[in-house]
């Protein structure tokens, strides 16, 4: 299958972290992120419009968050991008190629970990198999700090550990696009913070494009190059976050942007 070099470990304060939001792919890691284009994509269910025709371009290697009310079509949008659902109109292009079926080199994390209870942790991470999958899966588990649990059943892990296994599974095949549908929604605050830092670190190290759906506006501002607000089936706000990483949740700029989005969300 795809060539696999060792998992990049990038501490948040390493050189890579100088990469800032909004600028798109940095030179060092260009080519490993999907450039995404949506052309007048719309979707409805049973005559009810969920997404009005929308156009959107997402830079390769950028981190984009989507926030909005529950039922606003955020999950639908991710499912369209992943190819799990087909749009009613329009086209979705991954690196300029129109999507047909499940998107290539794209993985997805959901609010539930969706691990196979009948496979050990290692086999869950290596679900797609392929040459050398055991070695690669073990490395992916090491990157999320769970290589010592490789031989366990998923059932014995905590919620946060399950999501870390799901993250390892999502990253083992070196995706160019990682879709995250509220993956931290069910975790406690402490575990959430750890996971956010882990996701940011792996994104910085690997250079894939990340699209995160979250109901936590602070999380969106802390992690993203760009925040989209999805409201009434359209993108009501498209905000570039141009702050240096790592970002402190308590920094005044972060809080300022957060309240700006919240104001729009609540009106």
């Amino acid at each position, binding site marked *: 299958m795809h060539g696999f070099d060792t998992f990049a470990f990038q501490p948040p304060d390493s050189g890579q972290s100088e990469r800032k939001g909004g600028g798109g792919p940095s030179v060092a890691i260009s080519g490993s992120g999907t450039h995404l284009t949506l052309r007048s994509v719309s979707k409805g269910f049973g005559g009810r419009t969920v997404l009005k025709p929308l156009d959107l371009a997402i830079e390769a290697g950028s981190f984009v968050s989507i926030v909005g009310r529950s039922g606003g079509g955020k999950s639908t949008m991710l499912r369209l991008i992943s190819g799990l659902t087909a749009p009613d109109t329009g086209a979705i292009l991954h690196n300029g190629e129109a999507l047909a079926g499940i998107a290539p080199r794209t993985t997805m994390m959901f609010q539930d970990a969706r691990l196979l*209870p009948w496979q050990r942790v290692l086999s869950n991470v290596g*679900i*797609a198999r392929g040459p050398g999958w055991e070695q690669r899966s073990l490395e992916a588990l090491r990157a999320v700090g769970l290589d010592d649990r490789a031989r366990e059943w998923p059932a014995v892990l905590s919620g946060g550990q399950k999501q870390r296994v799901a993250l390892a599974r999502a990253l083992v095949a070196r995706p160019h696009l990682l879709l995250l549908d509220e993956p931290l929604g069910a975790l406690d605050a402490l575990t959430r913070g750890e996971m956010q830092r882990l996701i940011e670190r792996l994104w910085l190290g690997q250079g894939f494009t990340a699209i995160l759906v979250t109901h936590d506006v602070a999380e969106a501002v802390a992690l993203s190059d760009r925040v989209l607000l999805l409201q009434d089936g359209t993108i009501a706000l498209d905000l570039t976050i141009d702050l240096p990483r790592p970002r402190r949740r308590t920094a005044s700029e972060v809080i300022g942007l957060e309240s700006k989005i919240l104001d729009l969300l609540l009106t």
Partner: protein
Amino acid sequence: MSGMGAAASIEARPRRRSVFQARRIVPWLLPAATLIIWQIGAETGWITMRTLPPPLSILTAAISLSKTGELERQVLISCQRAALGFLIGGGLGFGLGLLNGLSRPAELTLDTSLQMLRNVPHLAIIPMVILWFGIGESAKLFLVALGVFFPIYLNTFHGVRMVEKSLIEMGRIYHLGSWAMFWRVILPGAMPSILIGVRYGLGITWLTLIVAETISSSSGIGYMTMNAREFLETDVVLLGVLIYALLGKLADMATRWLEHRLLAWHHNFQSGAEA
């Protein structure tokens, strides 16, 4: 506080071991007592030989029958019928259950008809089966297969349908082909339900075989007991009953072993959920 707890647990250990031993012995006290009273009752003439032969004479009957090889022959024939009938009926039920579980068009075509047939008790058609097949092997195989078919069909179908959609969706994201999806997601997900079907099916196998061999047969355990009845050999009749019980128990143990092997994750899943 914790020191006291440790002391208490050290004290409790030997007592727990003796409780453990008692747990193994106590359940066998009543059966053992029954056997002894039964034997004594028969020897004092309190229970007549015709009503209930004593345990020791059943043992003697078993020994004398197996000296001629007769016992082994009849048991083997019955076991072969059970195994073959189970495999045919179970195989068909499993196959059709998978087919209808996986394919909507197949379900639409077949399921309603199968559900209608299900309502016919399979033992009720024994006269028909004898008319069709005579009293040869095929009649008994047909009955066993028919009896086993439905529990396995229904549980396989149900199992496949109950596999979580979210896991199938996850498999699609990771580009699993149909074969990998079947082996890694659908079949293991359906397995708890399939094994329930297997267990039911095994129970029905022995029940059907007892009836079929007793009503019409020229070999097998059922034939052996009916033959003995004509000669008033109550001990042989009782021996047949005991062998059926034993074989049923063995089949049940085999299923348990299978469940233990195939559903190791499941036990863990449940204990994990409780914790």
